[in-house]
């Protein structure tokens, strides 16, 4: 793609939630300048309010803060907080956006987030972040780990007393700031404003806001969080006691035409299960009870989580019950739930009732839509279509996250990467245009020089100086071998001391630096940076911790703590003398990608790669492209999919940057990220190619049912077969059709939900009703999982007379042929509690979707794991759904999990965006601390090959026929297990070498001489006489 001028290599991301951050990081890593706009004072979005996330129970803040800090610190990302888009003009690739930046009265450069001003602020306000359960001041930090860590003055509540300014040590508060309008030139826009929670007060029958112990699910989440109001305890707001019984009411503000939210908010079911489990963990003896209509556990390992919740954690589930109302017992503030079960009205008492609130469109989104000129659907979410789920109605403006449709975190993250890819496609030529990198002076080669060690002992104010006798430590350091300079400083990591260190290095020609101060885990990078600036290899540096592991923990024993400080310094100097220069391996990146699987996902990925200017090698095991899409004829709203497929295949075949291999499979894959060697066997002819990255899009297969007389009676067919029949024949002569759901899914053998078959059944049912409304359709289901906007089609089907019959897992429908040869289906209706007998003309089974047959073989070849069900296992279920743990290999489509057409398209674009963050670089820096093989000592026994989990060592043949171990620098992670297993220590580690560690051990115990002193041989003589 030639670099036409006028394209701007910058993107504006509206919304700093998890989706906005993921899109921003992908774009920034690929070399684009990113402006992140958020109306709130700091990024983090809704996820920042969560305590734990389902189904893995990761602590939300623990997995979010690295993303927060990365976004805040990335030199290609500019954060524009408390800002809104005022107007936009221009065309795709060249927009000018005017941004209204609300005054926050605090200078972002100066404020350190220390929070001193909040102590003296007299005004207390209900804290929205904590859903009003806590108070905050008029000047506040949204939450402790907020990024950017800048306070904001809430102008509406602040009385302007000016106390905060007097308290601010940094002088960061400036009341004269006014609202300003800033003009920004960008290439594309990504909308990720997220959603707003439904106000449960609108459902007055549940008494939210009236009865004290009726909470919203977000309020409970805040209570469960350690930074929440009660530090993780769940307390009844009425009397501060821990609850004994807690009830969850699902679908509050979702699947509810009355409040204008007919759609399903997709996440509240799983959210409730998680909260029920975590609440039980925090409150011993708590009983939790969830009232729901359908349990929509359609994501990865959601069903196992749902089963575990029921069996292991004893959460009680009451199906098919929509609680009618809640009343309160005034003395005890306990709550009574009224619901009907099997026709009888029931009342149960609970200490706390939690309303699982659904999603509404983001606050004042109409204004935003109008300014940007994009269309919204009737629910206020962004209007997208099936084929381009990431594009808004206006070209150049893309959408991801909950704003396009309610979805959970992994789907939002996948869509965010997808939107990033779409945004890049407009400005592919301008990649890297507006981005700069940091330079360092040339590195002096110190190999062969006598070790000259400089020791810098830190006071760290009084953190160390208050307990250890730091000056005497510096004096002591001077006496150690190889030490040519030693000094103590008040703050070794402060800017001026860094300069001091570089001066001393140049002055005294130091070639090793030892710093005795705090924990190397956080400070090594700073000092290594200083060494680089002083022209020294950064690995000629050793740090020892005399603060967190000495002065702070031995405060009441200063003498012996100083003694320990001496030992720690002696050990560091002993190791420093043996340190060698290490250079991280640089891997050339091949600018081409391998896409495995030529279905919808594979083809979309290949096309996006080509748009971004990279070659794509598309490997398809069948004779023609299309995968499972070849058997799907129409979308939910009747879109012609076969037509789309033809056009897509043509696009792929015409694109000269995409090399298609049909009837092909992978013979062998070796190498690592940046340079995979791939041997493709296509139609018998083997070609060896080199690829920078690999995208796995192997798709899935339809389950061959064995139940319900399938294969024995022509009238029994799967939904896909039925769809083909409808599409081909255009009409159907039948009076009665029965559809059975969950055939092969959610069984003991395959305890997962295939996600798409409920909607597929509804689609086909609607198609039949269109053809002939007279035909009776019975849909036998366990849980209707038509999540998101698909819920409306479920309602439409019900309105058109489709009879939905719920059956429980234990009493499945029985199918047989009666004496007149008619099909007969008998099922116990769970609601009516009576047996139904139907004689359908056709029996259509919603068959499960299985992982592709080749996954097993491929997973071994790529050395990437499969999950228990045979689908590929991604690096992190919540925040890295499209990456594998092994770098450079990515995942999308049905290979990850069964999913819908538009979700496949999003994930395919997402995988491309993740891949571009590598392909856009020329070289990749590997790990510097890696294993080193001494080939003379290596016996080629291969023990290291078996030991290594990352496949870094491999045996290679030398000219003289000897086999020796060879370490692949890109794969070695530096753990050192191989060097221990190597029996004659042929492998040692950079920076943690065997000799270096031994020198530390020997210097740690100086009393006994080493090795034992030589004794006279004479001593032997007198022994013999005795």
């Amino acid at each position, binding site marked *: 793609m030639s670099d036409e001028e006028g394209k701007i290599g910058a993107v504006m991301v509206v919304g700093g939630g998890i989706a906005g951050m993921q899109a921003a990081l992908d774009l920034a890593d690929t070399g684009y300048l990113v402006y992140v706009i958020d109306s709130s004072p700091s990024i983090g979005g809704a996820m920042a309010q969560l305590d734990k996330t389902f189904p893995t129970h990761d602590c939300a803040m623990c997995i979010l803060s690295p993303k927060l800090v990365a976004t805040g610190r990335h030199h290609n990302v500019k954060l524009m907080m408390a800002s809104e888009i005022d107007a936009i003009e221009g065309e795709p690739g060249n927009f000018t956006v005017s941004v209204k930046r609300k005054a926050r009265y605090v200078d972002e450069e100066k404020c350190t987030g220390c929070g001193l001003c909040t102590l003296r602020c007299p005004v207390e306000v209900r804290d929205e972040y904590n859903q009003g359960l806590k108070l905050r001041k008029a000047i506040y930090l949204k939450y402790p780990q907020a990024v950017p860590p800048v306070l904001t003055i809430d102008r509406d509540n602040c009385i302007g007393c000016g106390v905060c300014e007097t308290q601010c040590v940094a002088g960061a508060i400036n009341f004269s700031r006014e609202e300003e309008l800033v003009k920004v030139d960008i290439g594309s826009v990504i909308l990720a404003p997220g959603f707003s929670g439904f106000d449960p007060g609108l459902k007055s029958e549940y008494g939210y806001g009236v009865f004290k112990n009726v909470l919203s699910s977000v309020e409970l989440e805040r209570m469960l969080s350690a930074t929440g109001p009660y530090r993780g305890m769940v307390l009844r707001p009425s009397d501060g006691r821990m609850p004994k019984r807690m009830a969850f009411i699902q679908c509050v503000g979702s699947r509810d035409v009355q409040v204008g939210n007919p759609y399903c908010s997709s996440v509240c079911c799983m959210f409730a299960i998680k909260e029920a489990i975590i609440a039980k963990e925090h409150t011993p003896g708590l009983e939790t009870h969830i009232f729901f209509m359908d349990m929509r556990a359609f994501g990865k390992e959601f069903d196992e989580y749902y089963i575990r919740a029921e069996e292991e954690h004893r959460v009680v589930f009451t199906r098919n019950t929509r609680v009618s109302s809640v009343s309160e017992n005034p003395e005890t503030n306990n709550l009574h739930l009224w619901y009907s079960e099997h026709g009888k009205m029931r009342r149960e008492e609970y200490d706390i009732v939690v309303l699982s609130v659904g999603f509404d469109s983001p606050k004042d989104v109409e204004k935003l839509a109008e300014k940007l000129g994009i269309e919204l659907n009737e629910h206020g979410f962004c209007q997208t279509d099936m084929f381009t789920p990431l594009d808004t109605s206006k070209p150049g403006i893309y959408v991801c996250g909950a704003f396009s449709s309610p979805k959970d975190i992994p789907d939002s993250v996948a869509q965010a990467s997808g939107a990033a890819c779409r945004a890049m496609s407009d400005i592919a030529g301008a990649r890297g245009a507006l981005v700069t990198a940091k330079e360092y002076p040339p590195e002096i080669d110190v190999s062969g020089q006598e070790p000259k060690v400089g020791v810098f002992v830190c006071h760290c104010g009084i953190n160390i100086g208050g307990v250890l006798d730091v000056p005497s430590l510096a004096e002591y350091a001077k006496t150690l071998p190889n030490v040519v300079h030693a000094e103590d400083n008040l703050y070794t990591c402060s800017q001026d001391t860094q300069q001091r260190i570089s001066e001393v290095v140049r002055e005294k020609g130091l070639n090793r630096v030892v710093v005795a101060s705090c*924990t*190397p*885990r956080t400070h090594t990078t700073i000092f290594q940076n200083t060494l680089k600036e002083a022209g020294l290899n950064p690995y000629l540096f050793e740090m020892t*911790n005399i*603060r*967190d*592991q000495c002065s*702070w*923990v*031995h*405060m*009441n*024993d200063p003498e*012996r*703590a100083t*003694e*320990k400080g001496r*030992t*720690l310094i002696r*050990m560091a100097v002993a190791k420093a003398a043996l340190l060698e220069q290490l250079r991280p391996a640089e891997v050339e990146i091949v600018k081409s990608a391998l896409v495995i699987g030529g279905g919808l996902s594979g083809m979309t990925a290949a096309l996006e790669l080509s748009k971004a200017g990279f070659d794509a090698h598309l490997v398809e095991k069948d004779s023609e492209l299309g995968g499972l899409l070849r058997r799907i004829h129409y979308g939910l709203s009747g879109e012609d999919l076969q037509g789309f497929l033809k056009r897509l295949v043509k696009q792929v075949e015409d694109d000269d940057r995409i090399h298609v291999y049909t009837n092909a499979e992978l013979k062998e894959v070796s190498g690592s990220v940046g340079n995979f060697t791939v041997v493709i066997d296509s139609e018998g002819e083997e070609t060896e190619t080199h690829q920078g990255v690999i995208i796995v899009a192997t798709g899935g297969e339809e389950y061959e049912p064995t139940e319900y007389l399938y294969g024995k009676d022509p009238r029994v067919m799967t939904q896909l077969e039925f769809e083909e029949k409808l599409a081909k024949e255009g009409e159907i002569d039948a009076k009665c059709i029965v559809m059975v759901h969950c055939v092969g899914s959610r069984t003991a053998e395959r305890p997962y939900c295939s996600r798409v078959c409920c909607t597929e059944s509804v689609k086909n049912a609607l198609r039949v009703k269109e053809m002939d409304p007279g035909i009776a359709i019975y849909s036998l289901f366990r849980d209707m999982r038509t999540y998101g906007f698909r819920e409306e089609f479920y309602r439409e089907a019900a309105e058109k007379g489709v009879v939905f019959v719920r059956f429980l897992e234990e009493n499945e429908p029985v199918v047989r042929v009666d004496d007149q040869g008619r099909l007969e289906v008998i099922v116990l209706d769970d609601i009516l509690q009576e047996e139904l007998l139907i004689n359908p003309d056709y029996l259509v089974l919603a068959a499960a979707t299985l992982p592709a047959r080749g996954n097993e073989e491929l997973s071994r070849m790529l050395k990437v794991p499969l999950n228990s069900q045979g689908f590929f296992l991604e690096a992190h279920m919540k925040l890295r759904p499209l990456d594998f743990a092994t770098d450079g290999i990515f995942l999308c489509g049905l290979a990850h999990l069964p999913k819908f057409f538009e979700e496949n398209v999003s994930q395919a674009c997402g995988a491309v965006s993740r891949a571009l963050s590598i392909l856009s670089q020329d070289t990749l820096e590997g790990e510097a*601390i890696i294993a080193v093989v001494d080939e003379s000592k290596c016996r080629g026994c291969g023990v290291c090959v078996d*030991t290594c*989990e*990352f496949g870094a060592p491999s045996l290679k043949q030398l000219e003289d026929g000897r086999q020796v171990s060879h370490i692949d620098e890109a794969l070695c*992670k*530096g*753990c*050192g*297990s191989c*060097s*221990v*297993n190597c029996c004659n220590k042929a492998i040692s*580690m950079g920076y*943690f070498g*065997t000799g270096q*560690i*031994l020198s*530390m*051990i*020997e210097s*740690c*115990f100086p*009393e*006994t*001489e*080493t090795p*034992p*002193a030589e004794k006279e041989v004479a001593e032997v003589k007198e*022994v013999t006489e005795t």
Partner: protein
Amino acid sequence: MTEAMAPAKEEGFQPSILAFCCNWCSYAGADLAGVSRLQYPVNVKVLRVMCSGRVDPYFVMRALELGADGVLITGCEIGDCHYISGNVKAKERFERLSKLLDQIGIGSERIRLEWISASDGIKFAELMEEFTEHITNLGPSPLKGSATGGV
């Protein structure tokens, strides 16, 4: 040859103990104990390695030979290892080394293997306390000042 008398527990005996801490979990736990100012005895000196799988049995034997009264190996909980199975290998080697130390008479109670996660500051401090006390009760290492040895 008389049974070697248990070395008299000199009062005021301060054991010197070496601890190998893995960079990702136990070293972070040690730092957390520091940040939360949990006080614990001075006797333990920490040697940072990238993974508990890096600790060679010879390092432990060499430390004991040089007069260490106790050696601690700490790593991530099983399943948390940054390198997937470093701690599993550490456990296998620890069991073999313990058998060897029992046989040659130093006794495996002088070495200890513990899993400390990055958020376990308290457990780290308690381990320091408990292990120092355990070694103090054991008394100084029989190899200390071992140049005498012989008949």
